[in-house]
């Protein structure tokens, strides 16, 4: 003898399934629209920018870090975190000039002048706004 389910039961189960499918379609639509926000922090592009620096500095180095952006701004934060991610296992010390220091610039400035403010000289200009600075040796 097979017991039957009430109409209320059937309606509840069917409605839940249909509503869930609606949610799934909403999700797909959202991802499709979101697709235009490709790599908003340009992480993939940073791999190429920092390639030269990775080759020039040993993996266990602790490096200073300078940027031309306003400290605390979202751009400055994104640039620093992206640089740290790309240069790991090297450690970066933000807004600090150490013996070896990374300059990470989003727009053209006088890199040598920025370095001089911190007692640094340009060791290598690696292109795309990436500079390797070295501390000026005091006599």
């Amino acid at each position, binding site marked *: 003898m097979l017991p039957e389910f009430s109409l209320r039961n059937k309606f509840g189960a069917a409605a*839940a399934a249909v509503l*869930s499918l609606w949610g799934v379609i*909403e999700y797909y639509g959202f991802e499709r629209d979101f697709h235009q926000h*490709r790599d908003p922090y340009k992480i993939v592009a940073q791999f190429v920018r920092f390639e030269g620096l990775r080759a020039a500095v040993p993996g266990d180095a602790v490096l200073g870090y300078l940027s031309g952006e306003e400290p605390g701004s979202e751009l400055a934060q994104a640039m620093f975190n992206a640089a740290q991610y790309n240069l790991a296992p090297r*450690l970066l010390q933000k807004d600090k000039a150490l013996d070896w220091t990374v300059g990470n610039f989003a727009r053209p400035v006088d890199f040598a002048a920025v370095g001089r403010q911190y007692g640094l000289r340009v060791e290598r200009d690696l292109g795309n706004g990436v500079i390797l600075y070295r501390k000026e040796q005091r006599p």
Partner: protein
Amino acid sequence: MIAVAWALFAVLIGCGLVMRFGRGLTALEPRWAAALLVFGSGAAAGIGLTSILFFLCRMAAPGIPRLGMFLEITIFGWLVFEISRQRKTSTPDATAKALFVPWLMGAAFLAFAIVTAGMTVAWDANPQGNWDAWAIWNLRARFLVEGNLPQRAWSALLTETHPEYPLLISGAVARCWAYAGSLTEAAPIATSYLFFLSLLAMVTGGVAVYRGRTLGLLAGLALLGAPTVMHEAGFAQYADVPLACYMMGATMLILLDRPLLAGLFAGLAMWTKDDGTQFVAIFLVAIAVLRRERFAQVAMGAIPGVVVALIFKIALSPRTSMYLMGGPKAMLQRVVDGRFWQISGAFAHEIGALGFGWYHPILPLLALAIGLSFERERRRDWLFAATIPCAMLAGYFSVFLISPFPLKWHLESSLNRLLVQLWPCFVLATFVGLSRLERTVIQAPAAPVKARKKSRTS
């Protein structure tokens, strides 16, 4: 592809462990649900335990990054031997009629395919995941895998990247990178997708075993129909969905009376995110109050995750919690400065924002609550399953009350993810209380022999 293969190897080890120590999990009925449960719990357990093993090996022998690999292969060999010796037992399936099972299976497959397609779109656009994925979790994975300085993953110099956060996700990604010998973006993508699969498999399989096939499939569909959760699972690559997986899994496994595995999941939650510490505390209190007889086994199961997390927090991690900043007086000041209503408003807003457009993931649950109603006999289980996410929510609320960060920023940057963590637990709690949509077939009773004889003679 090799990195993905190593992620799958962790799943294999986990499935082996669950089959060996899961107390007959494979013999549950229906068989497809048992298989989902073994896969789901095995994937989460395997990724978590191999991540711990990798972390410990990197600490013990930083010069041999593949030490854990050889240990894993040995463990896998032993598991294969142990499982092959086990006698196969299976409980015969009681004949039962369930509502719409083939239709719901079709709908679940369709929903799963659409969600996976949506996730591939997200991976294509942002293979590195969202901000925290590369700035915190995968950055720390890079420190764990590259060079001989894994301790840089919790260096006090990482001021922007929370060096005090636990390392399960970073360890899991670093493990795949180390064994594959490449820093491919496929490793974090595979890890986050496997946690999503694990969560889905445990919800569907667990509820199907516990409350019948129809409710199991509807639970899976209800989870897939939560767009914000799916977006976090696919696009973000954060630790919130893995944490959701461990929290929901621990609750599910207690309901299925697998306390050792439930404890293991609770411990792994603590090694996944700081929020997991709150979960372990709440889970253990709930067990002590509502399932006292299982407490010792749950506590024993939690040991691996809890011990590693405690060692990390006490001996390695650089900072203590910023929430206690300023001492009790400053904390009290923050509590009474009128932020209660601001937080309440943000909670209401974010709960509403779990949906997209006119759709909200609570709608399928409401349809079921109206159509099926709740079973009174399930009150105790329902109380257990619902208490945990409610207590977690209350805990999160309290954390915002004492938060030393700018409150608006703190709420906007984290509350939606906290709700994503808890949503699967709320789905489970709903399904635990619902009336079963499965009826055992009532066999027509055979007439007693004497009565039959009598009727013949008369």
